[in-house]
């Protein structure tokens, strides 16, 4: 069975994505052109917008769990609607471990990516930047000048 969806966040900074992956114990493999998933679409779940069955499993880069060859991987795929990348993944059966790493809908990865993007951006602008995890699970990035 396969349930391939996109995580909604649009990636425009691969270095920030790399840093976010490391924060979650994941590895961004640049240039890996296939990501691990069930292998065929069984039609029980709508395909991500702009993608057809032939597109599944192919990517420009991939995210994997180091040391876990059973886990499904996340495909970093050129967006069909924007100028960045989308994240596609098969969350069937928790992606055999991937869902625990990135959140039910990939929200942990999305949050960390946004935070790293913010840290990199405002540091380059000359701000002193701190990143902290709040009690309610949110991430706060404070930038002072």
């Amino acid at each position, binding site marked *: 069975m396969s349930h391939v969806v996109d*995580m909604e966040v*649009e990636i425009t900074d691969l270095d920030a994505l790399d840093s976010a992956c490391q924060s979650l114990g994941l590895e961004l493999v640049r240039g890996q052109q296939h990501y691990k998933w069930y292998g065929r679409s069984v039609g029980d779940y709508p395909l991500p917008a702009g993608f057809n069955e032939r597109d599944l499993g192919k990517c420009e880069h991939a995210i994997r769990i180091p040391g876990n060859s059973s886990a499904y991987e996340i495909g970093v795929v050129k967006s069909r609607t924007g100028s960045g990348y989308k994240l596609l993944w098969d969350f069937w059966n928790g992606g055999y471990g991937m869902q625990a790493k990135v959140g039910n809908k990939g929200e942990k990865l999305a949050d960390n990516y946004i935070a790293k993007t913010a840290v990199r*951006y405002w540091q380059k602008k000359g701000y002193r930047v701190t990143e902290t995890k709040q009690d*309610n699970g949110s*991430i706060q990035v404070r930038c002072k*000048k």
Partner: protein
Amino acid sequence: MEEIIITIQNGKAKIEVKGVKGQSCKALTKEFEEKLAGRKISDNNTKEFYEQPERLHARR
């Protein structure tokens, strides 16, 4: 002191700007918001937004 506070949860970001008077706070974060590619959820104007920025007077 100028401060930008970004709070991130469930894949979305709230951006607050402090210490910047007038509408220039919008220009300050515009490029960053574009990098987020639509993940901003709120953009509330604080009291400072409606204050006049300080004007520098030339020395004679």
